């Protein structure tokens, strides 16, 4: 449905998107995620035709656009939902949604699908942020785009509203059956709304996978850290598993030239998420509790292993282990841990 080949974008001297290649199937929702300034919004604007890329081809439903053959935004059938909603302030909700729609049934359909029937006559400035974004979405969908582009649609909204609204938006997109790219810097939002996640860093896509894969099997330390807390422990990987300061565990590898062949070992770093860890009050144990913080449902601990490494753990809130207590840290999860081959000269953190 959408394919992007070696897209490059420059702002003056800054090369903000580098050789981006991406293929999206019809009806799929792809989250384009990455830290601020990674180029994800620029890529989205280029797909919309609001920004002229310096190189590359964007093909929307068979219609190709390149620098030599630039298709203006209005000919791309790519609807866009903006961070600041971009509702036309001089038009009421119904007029906004029906901006260029010939069949009023589409307007009615999306007003009712998104619970906006009561606000038909309302002017945008009288609406709350959540309502505005629903109007903006209804407007895009009523125009029946082939592709829907969402540029940080929830970032101007209250945290309490976000979770509810993101599900509503996903539901509406699926109902319309439209292919969508959803740009966000919030990894939880990305995982919750998407079929696949594309992670960007410094203008490049570093991983495209299902949300589960991105979280459980990140292909780099960057992706691993981006999707959640975690500690990296040094280990020696062999055919039997990986040996770290807190024991021997099965592992999966996601990068580099390993697993080691028989009779060879390899230095690795193992990603351990806080909820993979259990702490047992025990002397002598293998670690000392440094800090503990109450988080409501859970408690977060930071412990120092006798190897000198630091490990984070998230346990039930029921038990409280005081700092300075000796504990034994173990991996409680059954699933294999992700191991990264230790690069030479790579600082271990």
């Amino acid at each position: 449905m959408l394919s992007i080949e070696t897209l490059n974008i420059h702002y003056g001297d800054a090369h903000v998107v580098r050789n981006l290649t991406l293929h999206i199937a019809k009806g799929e929702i792809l989250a384009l995620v990455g830290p601020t300034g990674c180029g994800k919004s620029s890529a989205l604007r280029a797909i919309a035709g609001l920004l002229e890329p310096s190189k590359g081809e964007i093909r929307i439903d068979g219609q190709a656009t390149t620098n030599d053959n630039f298709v203006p935004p209005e000919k791309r059938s790519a609807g866009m939902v903006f961070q600041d909603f971009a509702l036309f302030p001089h038009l009421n909700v119904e007029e906004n949604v029906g901006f260029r729609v010939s069949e009023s049934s589409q307007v009615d359909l999306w007003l009712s699908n998104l619970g906006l029937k009561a606000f038909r006559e309302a002017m945008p400035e009288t609406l709350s942020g959540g309502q505005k974004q629903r109007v903006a979405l209804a407007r895009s969908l009523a125009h029946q785009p082939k592709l829907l582009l969402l540029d940080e649609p929830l970032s101007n909204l209250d945290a309490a509203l976000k979770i509810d609204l993101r599900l509503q938006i996903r539901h509406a997109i699926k109902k319309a059956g439209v292919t969508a790219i959803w740009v966000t810097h919030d990894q939880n939002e990305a995982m919750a709304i998407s079929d696949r996640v594309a992670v960007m860093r410094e203008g490049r896509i570093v991983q495209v996978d299902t949300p589960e894969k991105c979280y459980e099997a990140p292909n780099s330390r960057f992706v691993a850290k981006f999707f959640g807390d975690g500690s990296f422990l040094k280990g020696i990987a062999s055919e039997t598993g990986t040996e770290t300061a807190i024991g021997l565990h099965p592992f999966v590898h996601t990068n580099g030239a390993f697993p080691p062949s028989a009779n060879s070992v390899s230095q690795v770093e193992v990603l351990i998420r806080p909820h993979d860890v259990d702490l047992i009050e025990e002397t002598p144990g293998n670690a000392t509790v440094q800090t503990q913080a109450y988080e409501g449902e859970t408690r977060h601990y930071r412990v120092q292993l006798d190897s000198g490494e630091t490990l984070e753990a998230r346990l039930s809130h029921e038990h409280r282990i005081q700092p300075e207590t000796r504990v034994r840290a173990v991996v409680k999860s059954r699933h294999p841990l992700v191991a990264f081959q230790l690069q030479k000269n790579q600082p271990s953190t």
Partner: protein
Amino acid sequence: MQRYSFAKRWRLHVPIATIVLLALSPIVVLIALATQEPLEFGSRNWRILGNTVGLTALTVLGAVAIGAPLAFATTCLKLRRAGLVLAMLVFPLAVPSYIGAFAYFAATGPGGEIEILFGIAPPEVRGLFGTAWVMTLYTFPFVVLSVRASLLRLDAGLVESGRTLGLTPLGTLLHVIFPRIRGGISSGALLVALYTLSDFATPAILGFDTFTRAIYVEYNAFGLSRAAWLSLQLLLLVLVVLTFESRAKTVRENPGRTLRWNPIPTTKICIYISTTLVWISSVGLPFVLFFVWIKREGVRSFEPSILLHSVVPAALAAFCAVIVALPLAQAASYGGRTENWMLHLTSFGFGIPGIVMGTALVYVGLHLPWMYQTTAMLVLGYVLRFLPLATGSLREGLNRLENSLSAAARSLGASPFETFRRVKLPLIMPAALSGAALIFLEAMRELPLTLLLRPTGMETLTTRLWQVYEAGYFGDAAIPGLLLILTSFMAMLLFIRTERLLRLAPEAET
């Protein structure tokens, strides 16, 4: 700021460059015209330069001396009827200075209106000091407004922390308040200087030889080349002032609480008395004079066609200027360096004094007989002179539009033209209308440009006033004068509203 690829920039550049060239063409014309004869800079020229600089300096001093303390008093002191005091202080802006000059010319001196009414002849208001006095009376409100604006931005917390650190009230005034409002004083002063340099009728009526008056004299004596040479010299002075102005950056501060002090009774009485005196000398005098004349001579002499002659070209100019300003403002809102630079160039047009613009266009007109002394020529003059008012107003309107609005319209399938028609245009309409209204009112009260460019025999409100001054039938000036005050009053309201200068502090009305 995002730049949109679909705004093929060269397509904007061509019309804009044309407009910019047009706006700057008067200068080229003047240079061509002036160099037709050998450029001389004789003793008379020196005297004119001295007079102009002297008048400007005295007026600036006077305006700051009156404006700054009164701005402080109305903004930072707890006064009863502070709103009224402020309105009285701003009201002189509603009286074109040439009306003031005319009133002083008719009222003072032997045989003047005051002698007729009261039997005592006050000294003639003429020459350097007389002209400076009149100019000061009608320009000091610029200082009041700009100082007031910077005082409103000053957070009372600063003054209070100064006091807790051991400063006396006078000490805070000198060391805390003054440094913060220096920018306000200087921007007001520059505005006064610009106004004084450009004003033609005030020195002309009061018989003081400044550049503007000398240019008119040369023009009347068919010395167009001399007039152009003097015009260029005047432009240079204007350029100096504009350079200072572009450097004076007002610091944007987060608004805090406004400072409020309780004045001692003596101070209060001084404020009320000085405000009243200033008001009587600037606003009261012309009003009284005009009503005395109407009572004595009636209104028969006023022909309504004069009003029509003022309204029609002004309305045409307002309409055309807004149309011309649209692509300019549009281009500037894309934020490119070239576009901004071009806009700066056109805004220089507003700095070109009316008499200078008139001289240049008269010369152009002499080469285009089908244009010379037509309403079209007059309208062209108004458009060139007041274009920056329209671009400024539209630009502000466009800046308030979020970029995403046109992007949204485009992504919904609207072409650039449809986006403009259905999204941008309705949203900038209020800005366009207020820009047009401002130009209309400014053109209505413009004297020198009208005097030079109007079709022969066409009398407008301003030219009638001039005619009356030259002929000495003062009574006939009453109705045009009052209508011009009304026009200026509306222009002032609009100006103040757009600039949001009169924001009253919360307790100011009490």
